[in-house]
């Protein structure tokens, strides 16, 4: 066999992206996509978090005026939405560790469903914890 007839398939970035987008998506594939999106959102939030706490260096008043803005219902709703990303990323992260280091590969689809259910429950619990104080405050307690 002549050597120059052997063709090595070259890596084509566009083809790679196309293949991945058109790939049949199962729970694992969706988990992979959501994990990346939530991870990017969380690292973006970490930068914002350092920035938003930077007024701690300026003392009490600067910090409290900034915190007053962050405790408005609008920002609290944003915080609650942030919790979706935190929840997905941590629950799916636990799932990934179980698949890698335990027997998780055998039941990773069940784990995915269970983590969704647990996530929704925890999300609602968090909503109660966060907003119950605010609602009580509205009624003057």
């Amino acid at each position, binding site marked *: 066999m002549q050597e120059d007839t052997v063709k090595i398939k070259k*890596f084509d*970035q566009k083809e*790679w992206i196309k293949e991945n987008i058109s790939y049949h998506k199962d729970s694992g594939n969706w988990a992979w996509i959501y994990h*990346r999106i939530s*991870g*990017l959102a*969380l*690292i973006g939030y*970490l*930068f914002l978090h*350092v920035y938003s*706490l*930077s007024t*701690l*260096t300026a*003392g*009490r008043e600067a*910090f*409290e005026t900034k*915190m007053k803005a*962050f*405790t408005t219902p609008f920002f609290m709703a944003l915080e609650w939405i942030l*919790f979706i990303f*935190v929840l997905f990323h*941590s629950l799916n*992260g*636990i799932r*990934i*560790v179980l698949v*890698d*280091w335990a027997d998780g590969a055998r039941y990773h689809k069940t784990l995915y469903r269970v983590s969704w259910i647990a996530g929704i429950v925890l999300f609602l619990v*968090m909503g109660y*914890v*966060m907003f119950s*104080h*605010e609602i009580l405050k509205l009624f003057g307690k």
Partner: protein
Amino acid sequence: MYRYQSSKNSGATSWVLQRISGIVLVVLMIGHYILMHYHPDSGHTYDAVLGRMQFSWYRILDLVFLTLGMYHGLNGIWGIFRDYKLKPWLKISVLSSLVILGIAFVAWGYNIIFSIPYLKNITLN
């Protein structure tokens, strides 16, 4: 033949560290959420932060949390970039910007934590 000599680093160490830091972060995150949201004042008033920061263990905990979070996040971004087979010049630019960004923000965070004063007289109630 290969045009570029690729890195000998397989990424196995960062893979393991990503999982270990992830597990630690999940535990720390639970504590963080309870601390910040069990009562709205505990996370959002200067007095609460000042009171917490009188205990050096809280400062150390925050420093660890910030460092691990930043490492885990930027390592994750780097992992995403690694999937796309970047050209060497792009690779080194992305990696160095991530490292610089990480060091800058961690240093900023450390500066914030260390700038909170220790009070001379503490009364616990």
